[in-house]
C-alpha cells in the first residue's frame, strides 16, 4: 500500500477531540443519574447491537432483517450457561460470543450470493427458525414463558448485580467500550478499507484482488459475535431471556436506531440508541399501545426527506442535493 493511502487511512482513524468527551459522559451518566441506571444499561446494550449491524450494513452493505438471530442466540447462550454451567458473567459472555461465532459462520454461507431481496429473506428466515426452535424446545428454553431463574454471580467476584442496576450499567458500558475500540481499529484498518470497497462496488473490488466472499464471511462472523455479546449483556443484566429477543421487532428496531444515528461511522449506533430509547420512553408514556404508529410515521418521513439529513442539522434549511 502506498504512503498516501496509508496516510488517508490514518487520517480517518485519528481520534477526534469529541470522542473521549462522549465516552467520559457515557461513563459519568450512571453516577450522575442513578435512578436511570437501568435505562443506561439498556442503551449501552442496544448501542452495541446497533454497532454490530453497522458493521455489516453501513460498512459492507449487507441488508439484514434478521440480525436479532445473533442477539437472541447470545442472550439464550449466556442465560443457559449461567443457569447450568457457571454463573460467572465474563465467562458467560465469552461463551455466548463463541456460540454466536459458530452460528455466524454457518449463516455467512447464506449471504454470499444473491440480491438484496435474497439476503433479506435468508436473514429473516434464520431469525424466524431460531424463534421457532426456541419456542418448541421448551424443555431447554422455557418456551413462551421465557427462561427464568437465571442468577448471576457477582462480577469479578466482587460487584453484585443489584436492583439499582449500577453494576449492570457499568458492566455493559465497559464491554461496549472495549468492543467498540476493537471495532474502531478494525474498520479503519486496511481490512476495513476492503470492506468499504466491497460495499461500493463489488465487481471492482474483485478485480483489484480483494477476496470478496472471504471478506463478507469474516465480517458477518464478527458482526454475529458482537450482536451475541449484546444479547448476552441483556440476558445477564436482566437475569431473563424470552422469545422476544428473536422477534422481528428487534431486527426492525435495531435497523431503525442505526438509521437514526446514521450508518457507516460506528457512532451512529450510539447516537441512535440514545435517541431511540428516549423517544420510546416519551412516546410510550403518551400512547402505550400505539407508539409503533409514531415510529412508523417517523420512519416514513425520515426516508422521504432523506435519512442523511437527520444527523446533519446544517442541511435542514436549504435545498437538498440529490
Amino acid at each position, binding site marked *: 500500500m502506498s504512503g498516501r493511502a496509508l496516510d488517508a487511512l490514518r487520517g480517518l482513524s485519528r481520534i477526534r477531540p469529541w470522542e473521549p468527551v462522549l465516552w467520559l459522559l457515557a461513563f459519568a451518566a450512571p453516577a450522575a443519574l442513578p435512578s436511570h441506571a437501568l435505562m443506561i444499561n439498556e442503551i449501552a446494550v442496544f448501542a452495541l447491537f446497533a454497532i454490530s449491524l453497522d458493521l455489516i*450494513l453501513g460498512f459492507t452493505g449487507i441488508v439484514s432483517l434478521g440480525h436479532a438471530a445473533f442477539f437472541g442466540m447470545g442472550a439464550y447462550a449466556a442465560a443457559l450457561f449461567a443457569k447450568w454451567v457457571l454463573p460467572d458473567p465474563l465467562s458467560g459472555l465469552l461463551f455466548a460470543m463463541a456460540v454466536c461465532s459458530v452460528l455466524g459462520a454457518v449463516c455467512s454461507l447464506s449471504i454470499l450470493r444473491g440480491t438484496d431481496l*435474497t439476503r*433479506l429473506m*435468508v436473514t429473516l428466515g434464520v431469525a424466524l*427458525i431460531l424463534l421457532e426452535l426456541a419456542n418448541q424446545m421448551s424443555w431447554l428454553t422455557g418456551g413462551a414463558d421465557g427462561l427464568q431463574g437465571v442468577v448471576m454471580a457477582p462480577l469479578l467476584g466482587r460487584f453484585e448485580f443489584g436492583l439499582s442496576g449500577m453494576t449492570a450499567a457499568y458492566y455493559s458500558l465497559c464491554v461496549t467500550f472495549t468492543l467498540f475500540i476493537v471495532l474502531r481499529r478494525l474498520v479503519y484498518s486496511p481490512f476495513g478499507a476492503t470492506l468499504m470497497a466491497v460495499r461500493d462496488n463489488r465487481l471492482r473490488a474483485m478485480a483489484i484482488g480483494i477476496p470478496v466472499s472471504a471478506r463478507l464471511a469474516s465480517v458477518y462472523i464478527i458482526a454475529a459475535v458482537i450482536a451475541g455479546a449484546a444479547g448476552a449483556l441483556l440476558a445477564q443484566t436482566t437475569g431473563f431471556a424470552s422469545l422476544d429477543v428473536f422477534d422481528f421487532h428487534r431486527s426492525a428496531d435495531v435497523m431503525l436506531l442505526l438509521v437514526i444515528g446514521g450508518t457507516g461511522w460506528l457512532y451512529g449506533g450510539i447516537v441512535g440508541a440514545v435517541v431511540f430509547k428516549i423517544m420510546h420512553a416519551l412516546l410510550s408514556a403518551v400512547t402505550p399501545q400505539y*407508539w409503533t404508529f409514531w415510529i412508523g410515521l417517523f*420512519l416514513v418521513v425520515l426516508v422521504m426527506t432523506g435519512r442523511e439529513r437527520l444527523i446533519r442539522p446544517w442541511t435542514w434549511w436549504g435545498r437538498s442535493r440529490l
Partner: protein
Amino acid sequence: MLTILFDGVAYGMLLFVLAVGLAVTMGLMNFINLAHGAFAMAGGYLTVVLMQRLDVAFLWCLPLAFLFSASLGALLERTLYRPMYAKPHLDQVLFSIGLTFMAVAGTDYFLGSTQQIIQLPDWLRGRTEIGSGDWILGMGHYRLFIIGVCAALTVALQYALAKTRFGSRLRASVDDQRVAAGLGIHVNRVFLTTFAVGSGLAGLGGALGAEVLGLDPSFPLKFMIYFLIVVAVGGTSSITGPLLAALLLGIADVAGKYYIPKLGAFIVYSLMILILVWRPQGLFVRVGAK
C-alpha cells in the same frame, strides 16, 4: 391425504393472489415493498366492516375490496411510493416497514385488536366428500370457491400479460425500463396501473382469505414473510413462477402443520433458505432476463 393436498392447493392459490401483485411490482420497479400485506389487510377489513355494519352481501364485498385496495394503492403510489423507486434498497425497506407499522397500529386503534370473523353465506359453508378410506377427499365449499376464483384470476392475468397491448407494454417495461420509455411507452402510467392492480388483488385476497388465514391488525407482519417467500422463490420475471412457488408453499405448510405440528413453520423456513442458497435468484427464472 387428498384432503390435505386440496387444502394446500386452496391455501397456495390464496397466497398466489395475495402475492402476485408484489411479484410484479418488485420485478417492474425493483422495489422491495414490505407493506404489501397492508393492502391485503385493507381489503379484508373493508369486507368485515361492510358485512357487519352495512349488511352487504359477501359476493359484493369482493369486488369492492378489490376497488378499495386498488384505489388506495394508486393513491399511495402517486404520492409516497414514486419518489422511493430511485432510492437504495435500505431506504425502501425502512420506508415500507414504517408504512406497515403505521397500518398495524392504525387498524388496532380504529377497529380493535381482536380477531375478525366473517359470516359466510350458507351456500359456501358445506362440505362435500368423495371416495372413502385413505383416499377420501373432503372439499370445503368455501375452499372450492377460493380455488375457482383464484384459478379464474390466474388465467385472466396470464391472458392480460401475454395477449393484450397493456401486457406487452408491461413486459417491455420490466425487461428494460429505459428502452421501453424510449419507444414511447408511458412507463410511469404502466407502473401506476400495475401497482393499483397488484394492490387490488392483494385486497381481494385479503377479503377471500379473512376466513381461512384469520384477520387481525398484525396480519401484514404475520404474512409478510409468506409473500416474500413466494416472490423470492418464484422469481419476479413471470407469473407462473410465483404461482408454482405459492402452491408449493401452501401444500408444504398445510402438510407440515398436519403431519408434524411440532415443527410447524420450521420446515417452510428451512426449505426457503435451502432453495435460496441453492438458487439465489429463485427457482423459476427466465434465462437471459436482467
